[in-house]
C-alpha cells in the first residue's frame, strides 16, 4: 500500500514536500480566490483598495451584474444551449456506440469512418463555411441550430466513448436475452443501456462542461445577440466600455460557479471523462 508511495520518495513525504504542494495549490487557486474576493467587496472598496482580499462584504457587485449586466439572461441562455445539446450527444452517442459495438449493419464501415473523421477534424477547420451554411438554412441566432452544431462537435467523441462501454459487456447477456425471446430493440433498451448508465453519466458531465464553456460557436452563430450565453456575455462585458472590476468579477463568478460546483462534486467523473477523451482518443 504505502510501500508503493514510499518506494520512490527518498524518505517519507517530508514537511518540505507538503509545503511545496501547499504553495503550488495556493498559486493555482489565487485567480479563483481573486474573483470571489472582488465580487464580494463593496464597489467603493474595489476602487479604493484594489489589493485587499475580502476587505469588505457586499452583494452590490452581484446585483449590478445580475440586473444591469444582463447576467440573469446570459445564465438562462447558457442553460438553454448546454442542456439540450448535452442530451442530444448522450442519446445519439449511446445509440450509435451500441450499433458500432454490437450490431452488424449495412453501411457500417462508412459510418465508422465518419466518426473517425469527426475525431480528427477540429471545429476550427470548417467554422467559416458553416457560418454561411447556417445563414442559408436560417439557423443563425436560432436555439435549435446552435444546439445542433454544439452537439455535433462532441458527437464523434461521445460515440467513441460509449462504444468502448458496450464493447466491454459480455456476449452471454445477448444470448440469454435472445433465448428469453427479447427483440433486438428490447435487448438494447432493457438489457444493455441500463448496464452503461455510469458511462452515460460521465459523458453527460463532460459534455455539459464543454458546452457550457464553449465560446466560439455562440460567438459565430449568435451574431444577433438574442441568446448570448455567459461566455459570450462576459466577453462583450470586457469589450465594451472601461468596466468596473467589481461587476465584472461578479459576472465571472456567475460564469464559473456552476462549473466549479459540478467539478468539485463529480470530480471523479469529470476527470475520467477528460482522461479517456485524451488517452483513449
Amino acid at each position, binding site marked *: 500500500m504505502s510501500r508503493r508511495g514510499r518506494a520512490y520518495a527518498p524518505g517519507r513525504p517530508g514537511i518540505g514536500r507538503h509545503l511545496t504542494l501547499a504553495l503550488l495549490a495556493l498559486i493555482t487557486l489565487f485567480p479563483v480566490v481573486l474573483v470571489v474576493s472582488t465580487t464580494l467587496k463593496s464597489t467603493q472598496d474595489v476602487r479604493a483598495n484594489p489589493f485587499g482580499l475580502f476587505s469588505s462584504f457586499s452583494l452590490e457587485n452581484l446585483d449590478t451584474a445580475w440586473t444591469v449586466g444582463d447576467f440573469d439572461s446570459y445564465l438562462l441562455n447558457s442553460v438553454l444551449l448546454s442542456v439540450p445539446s448535452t442530451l442530444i450527444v448522450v442519446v445519439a452517442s449511446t445509440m*450509435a456506440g451500441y450499433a458500432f459495438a454490437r450490431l452488424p449493419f449495412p453501411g457500417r464501415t462508412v459510418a465508422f469512418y465518419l466518426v473517425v*473523421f469527426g475525431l480528427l477534424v477540429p471545429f476550427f477547420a470548417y467554422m467559416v463555411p458553416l457560418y454561411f451554411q447556417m445563414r442559408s438554412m436560417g439557423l443563425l441566432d436560432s436555439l435549435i441550430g446552435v444546439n445542433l452544431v454544439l452537439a455535433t462537435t462532441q458527437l464523434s467523441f461521445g460515440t467513441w466513448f460509449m462504444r468502448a462501454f458496450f464493447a466491454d459487456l459480455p456476449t452471454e447477456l445477448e444470448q440469454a436475452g435472445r433465448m428469453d425471446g427479447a427483440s433486438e430493440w428490447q435487448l438494447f433498451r432493457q438489457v444493455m443501456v441500463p448496464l452503461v448508465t455510469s458511462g452515460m453519466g460521465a459523458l453527460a458531465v463532460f459534455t455539459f462542461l464543454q458546452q457550457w464553456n464553449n465560446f466560439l460557436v455562440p460567438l459565430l452563430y449568435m451574431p444577433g445577440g438574442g441568446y448570448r450565453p455567459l461566455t459570450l456575455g462576459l466577453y462583450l462585458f470586457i469589450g465594451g466600455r472601461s468596466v468596473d472590476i467589481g461587476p465584472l468579477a461578479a459576472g465571472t463568478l456567475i460564469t464559473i460557479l456552476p462549473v466549479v460546483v459540478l467539478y468539485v462534486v463529480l470530480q471523479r467523473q469529470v476527470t475520467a471523462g477528460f482522461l479517456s477523451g485524451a488517452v483513449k482518443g
Partner: protein
Amino acid sequence: MTAAPAPAAAPTVPGPRRGRRARSGVSEATRRQQARLGVLLVAPAVVLMSVFLVFPVLNAVYYVFVDFDGLDTTPPFVGLDNFTELARDRDMWAAAWNNVIWIVLGTIGPLVLGLAMALLLWGVRRGSTFYRVVFFLPYVLPQVAVGVVWGWIYAPTRGWLNRGLEAVGLGGLARGWLGDPHTALYAVLGTAIWTATGFVFVIVLAALRNVAAELVDAAMLDGASYLQRLRYVVLPQIMPVFLMVTALTLIGGFAVFDIVFVMTGGGPANATEVLGTYAYSNAFQLSRISYGTTLALVVTALAVPVAVWLNRLQRRASTEGLGA
C-alpha cells in the same frame, strides 16, 4: 476496398473466440433485425455529422479555390491564388512565427511543470485528493473567464503581478504586461500554461500509479540516486503516456484561439496574432472569407502529422495494455 471493412470492424467484435461462435449461431431473422436496428441507431449521429460536419468541410475545400466574399452566389474560381497569397503574406508569417513560439513554450511549460507536480504528489497520501482537484481546476474553467481574471493580474497600475514584483524589489520590471508588444505573447502564454499544466499533471499522475514499485525499490537498493531512478526506472515506464500528452498538447497549440482572442484579440500591434486569430479576423472582420478558410485549413493540415503520430502512440499503448 474488400479489405477495408476488416480493420474497422475488428476492434468491435466482442471477444475473439466467443464472438465468432455466437455470431454463427445467430438466426437469419435475428440478423435482419440487427441490421435494421443498427441503421436506425446510427442514423441520428450520421445525419447530424453529415449536415454539420462533412458538408461544411467539403464547402471549406471549395472555398479555398474560389474568391468568396460572403454575398456572391457564384464566386469566381481562382485556382491556387489563395495559397500563393498566403505564402507572400508577411502578417501570416508573423502569426505563424508566434504560433511556433506558442507551440514550443506552450508544450514544454505544461509538460515540465505537470511532470514535476505529479512526481511531487506521487506517494503523498494526506490531502492528495485535494491537490488533484485543485491542480486540475484551471483546465476545467471556461477560457473566457480565465482570460478575464488574468487580465486583472497583468494590469499596469492595479495588477497583482506588478504589485508582487514591487513587493520583492523588482518594481523596475513592472509594466502593462498585455499592452507591451514585447511581453504580451508571453503573458498570454503564461495564462495558457497555468490552465494546461493541470491536464498534464492528472494524466502523468495516473500513469505513475502503474509504475512497478519493486523496480524502483530494487534500484534504490542498488544505490541509484533520485535522478538516476527517475531517468532509468520511472520515466521509461510512463513514457508512452507522456508522449501521448505531448502530442495532445502540441495539437492544441496549433489551433489556439479562445484565450488569445479574449485576452488581446491579437494585439497590441499584432504582437500576439496567431494563425487562429488571424484566420478569424480575415474571414469575419475583413470579409476575406476564402482566405480565412484557407488559413484555417492550413492550420488543420499542419497538425495532421502530429495527430497521426498520436494515433500510433495510442495504438501501441493499448496493445501494451497501458491505455489507462
